């Protein structure tokens, strides 16, 4: 399969960082996922071949890292932290609110319009600004239910553009 020019450039640059090709693997998987939405069978084969690994070896690595996925997520993946600091400041309520609002089961499925998925995640490093969530890579902190509504609405609008 062909990668985009941007991803090819990323790959070539990263290869120069390390004495072994394999070291590229973890960050490059994430960059690939960002472009494709998830790690497809073809992408896994392609990366394995480039790094002199078997597809199985690549899958073994994928299965270890929480952010890597082999199934699609919504265009905007809403990741709500419920770990201790967020728990103390209403993280579970925020998760429940997002789930209801979007009508998606947590950790599985995508909203009917394909726009949203909802994940319960472990600590994202926003402890002093809890409760917090990430939508894809964007942090949203000091959340209230009203703030969550606004944020989700802004992503919904973005998806329609």
């Amino acid at each position, binding site marked *: 399969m062909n990668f985009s020019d941007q991803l090819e450039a990323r790959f070539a640059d990263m290869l120069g*960082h390390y004495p*072994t090709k*394999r070291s*590229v693997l973890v*960050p490059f998987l994430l960059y690939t996922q960002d472009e494709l939405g998830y790690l497809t069978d073809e992408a896994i084969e392609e990366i394995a071949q480039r790094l002199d690994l078997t597809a199985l070896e690549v899958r073994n690595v994928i299965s270890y890292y929480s*952010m890597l996925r082999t199934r699609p997520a919504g265009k905007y993946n809403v990741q709500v932290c419920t770990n*201790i600091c967020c728990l*103390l400041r209403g993280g*579970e309520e925020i998760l429940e609110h997002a789930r209801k609002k979007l009508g998606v089961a947590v950790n599985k499925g995508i909203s009917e319009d394909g726009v949203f998925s909802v994940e319960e995640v472990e600590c994202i*490093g926003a402890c002093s600004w809890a409760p917090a969530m990430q939508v894809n890579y964007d942090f949203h902190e000091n959340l209230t239910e009203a703030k969550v509504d606004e944020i989700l609405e802004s992503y919904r609008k973005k998806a329609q553009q």
Partner: protein
Amino acid sequence: MAYLVSHPDEVKVISSRFGKGAADIDRYLELDGYKAVQMALQMGSEAVINEVKASNLRGRGGAGFPTGMKWSFVPKESAKPKYVLCNGDESEPGTCKDRLIFEHDPHAVIEGAMIAAIAVNAHKAYIYIRGEYRYLLEIMQKSIADVYARGFAGKNIFGSGYDLDVYWHGGAGAYEVGEESALMESLEGKRGVPRIRPPFPAVVGLWGGPTVINNAETLASVPHIIMMGGQKYADIGTPKNGGTRLFCLSGHLEKPGVYELPMGYNLKKMIYEVGGGISNGRKLKAVVPGGSSTPVLTADEIDIAMDFDSVAKAGSMLGSGGVVVIDDATCIVKFALRTMQFYRHESCGWCIPCREGTDWLNKTLTRFHAGGGLAKDIDNIRYLAENMLGRTFCPLGDAAAMPTIGFVKKFREEFEAHLEGKPCPFEKHGAISQLPVMSH
């Protein structure tokens, strides 16, 4: 974007450039940036190590190992290349300090890594940033590119004849990778499982070469130490605990935030003065003083100095600087359960006591909190946790066990209050959701 706060008791060393646009290399240079690395080049390896030893700087990742001593363990001669590795896989619940450093002062991390490299005569440094911190990785990528564009990295840095390359690396979501040997596995493109020790990374680390691995905050402190002198830095803190540290105040506080305070600052003052006291007019129940893996302190155990040795004496750990404040409306059983749910999710499964222990404890605590607990469960929880201690390759097993033992020991009556099908005595109640374990 992370928010900045301020308090008059703060001593701003690491945070001295926060909010000043220092991610821009020109601004960093105006603010005395990249002077320390040039001084280090002139001082040479031994003098740099001695300066850091004199500073009493101890590892800010959590273990508190003396940094200068760590560097001195790296063999002078090595057939394999040596490496410096910055651990920016910040993921201990309660900890959000490295995020501020990477956002506001990324060049301090680069400069600190460069000085560490000069100290151990390494020519390559890697800065590993957790996958969730993509915006910070992008800041770091730009910062490294700027450093190369100025000729501060690469061949013959600052005309010294010394070659030094700096690279970024990104993770993809794994708490375990914050453990030093697992981080090396991850950087080598593998699952992040820990390595057996000895040999220690200082002798056999990344790609088999001697490796210094330091937390991002530790490295960001180093240029300041070189600039002000080790002794002056040491004087800010308490004996054997040099300097300042970024404390991440979270939980039920009026003014949560990341504050830079001298080592040894009083915890009670930190909560009631710096953090503005308990929110919503409630009372303090407990404090987790150094990130989720450190044993809980009760409300009457907080009149202590926040340095590594004093907190250890009080039966807990200073850890990663994450101070989690819990009010009297919180159910400790629920808190213990959520803590264990995290460790169960993050256990890499390599060592049986950790893999099975976290799962058993999670199951037991789940049942217990839901009202299905038996009296003997309370001792069983403690017994299980105690049997994980010291029996794993890496400290994740201990990190799960230690807080659990603390919760049972110090809040036994709350566990008892859940017995015989009684509903949780605290207002919020419900089945805790379950994260999938390594299933994708």
